[in-house]
């Protein structure tokens, strides 16, 4: 458990409020536990995830919420955010909780499947579905899709569109920037297999 946040205090709440992912400021503290967020939440309707409850953990200073598996069921659909009567955002609070988990190094497993997004940005200056998902997608969607993927450039030409990727100078530019931001290190750190995972 992280010592950064004293158990039973508002430390965790204050950390979230001040994080740049969270835009609702002190409204976090105004939560009345009305459950409106949960009432309209797809995650709550189809799993054990409960955004109201998650907020209660945060306000209680119960840091165990950081390690909760349930919070990984949020869709980031912002429904809760748009209806919360006090202007809180469970959606953004959830995003910050995950960043905390990542910083603590306990979320690598969750992120590894998606590192492809980072690699593709560093190498091609653009996101795109990571290749590790292709096999399953091909099964789920079908051969037509696979066929189309292999002929993307032809289709684009037919539609009068230019190349998919940005020009080389821009790719160069963005990778330089991303390295400077520490993004590359972040990706590499997540990729490392920790001892305890081995």
């Amino acid at each position, binding site marked *: 458990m992280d010592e950064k946040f004293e158990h039973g205090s508002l430390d965790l709440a204050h950390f979230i409020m001040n994080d740049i992912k969270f835009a609702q400021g002190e409204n976090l503290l105004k939560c009345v536990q009305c459950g409106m967020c949960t009432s309209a939440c797809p995650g709550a309707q189809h799993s054990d995830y409960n955004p109201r409850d998650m907020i209660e953990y945060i306000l209680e200073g119960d840091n165990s919420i950081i390690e909760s598996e349930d919070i990984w069921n949020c869709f*980031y*659909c912002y429904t809760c955010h748009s209806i919360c009567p006090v202007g809180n955002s469970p959606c953004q609070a959830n995003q910050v909780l995950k*960043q905390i988990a990542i910083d603590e190094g306990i979320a690598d497993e969750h992120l590894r499947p998606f590192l492809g997004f980072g690699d593709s940005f560093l190498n091609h200056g*653009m996101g795109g579905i990571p290749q590790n998902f292709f096999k399953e997608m091909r099964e789920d969607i079908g051969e037509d899709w696979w066929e189309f993927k292999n002929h993307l450039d032809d289709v684009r030409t037919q*539609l009068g569109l230019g190349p998919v990727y940005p020009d080389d100078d821009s790719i160069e530019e963005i990778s330089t920037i991303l390295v400077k931001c520490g993004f590359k290190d972040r990706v590499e750190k997540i990729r490392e297999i920790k001892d305890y995972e081995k």
Partner: protein
Amino acid sequence: MKQIPDKNILLFKSCLVSIEYPGVESSTTFVFDKIGVDYFVSREQTCCTGLGHYSDVFDQFTTTVNGARHFALSHKLNRPNFAMMCATCYAINKRVANLLNENDELRDSVNDVFDDCGFEWMKYEKDDITSRENIFHVIDIFYSKRKEIAENIKYDFSDFKIATHHGCHYCKAHYHDTIEGVRNPHIIDDVVNACGVETVGWYDFKRATCGNGFSQRFVHKDLSMDATNDKFKSLKDKNTEILIHLCPNCHIQFDRYQPYMEKHYGEKLDIINLNIAQFLAIAMGADPYNVVGIQTHTVPVEPLFDRLKLLSDEDKKMIIENVSRKVDLDNSADFNMEADTIKVDFKKGAK
């Protein structure tokens, strides 16, 4: 109503549009050309980081730096008005603009990165780009050009049962900026309406997510599909034939995964998916393969063309008249955006 630009627009490329449904981009430019929108697409643009961002791989700082580069680019090109084809690009960039304008410390750190890299020209100054005045979704522009859209319509879709889905990150993430409803989003319905077509309007779970949930579709597929199923069931109850949306990520969920859903939940769906730009392009007579790009779709779009009728001159005249009247009404001060659409009844004429 807020001011929506039609000039100096940077049409922001979306990674999923580019890779999965490139026809959305060609349809958008096709429609823009018809309705008189001045835009430019730049190869210097990367993408918004959205997919990685919402899979928690990107941190907010990196996303902000990447966004700031695009803001600088837009000024370099003298195209400070962004038009997004994807709901995620829209929300990400609005957030970046707000952060850069409101958080002095963060702005300084972003500029430090540019300094360190020797990219002086990218440095951001407060209010270079503002979320409300500079960042739009393509749908906003369509909405502001409903009269022009009505004037360019060639085909009649009024025989189809059409429903709409509004991307979450378009209508909910920045709800103070959203036009035409957050709790009852209906801006796409209004634009479809400008083609003389009535949509099914509200359906249960209308404002709910498409179900993709970024990481969810890949790592919690059942959860993701259950959420999508809520929507499909409700759409089926309304006998929906065409579903129109404004975001390629929703498009993938509803189109690519439809066969899978049919198998998994044991119900035939046969719901054709179109991005609003593709819908407008078809209605304006664009070529299905060379412009709309229907060959990239998983659920075949072809059956639609068999039932499409040419619009008669009389009908078109009536549509133009009614749409102008409605647009004027919407622009009047006391219009209530959250309530249901004031529908234009095309058969009997607006009241």
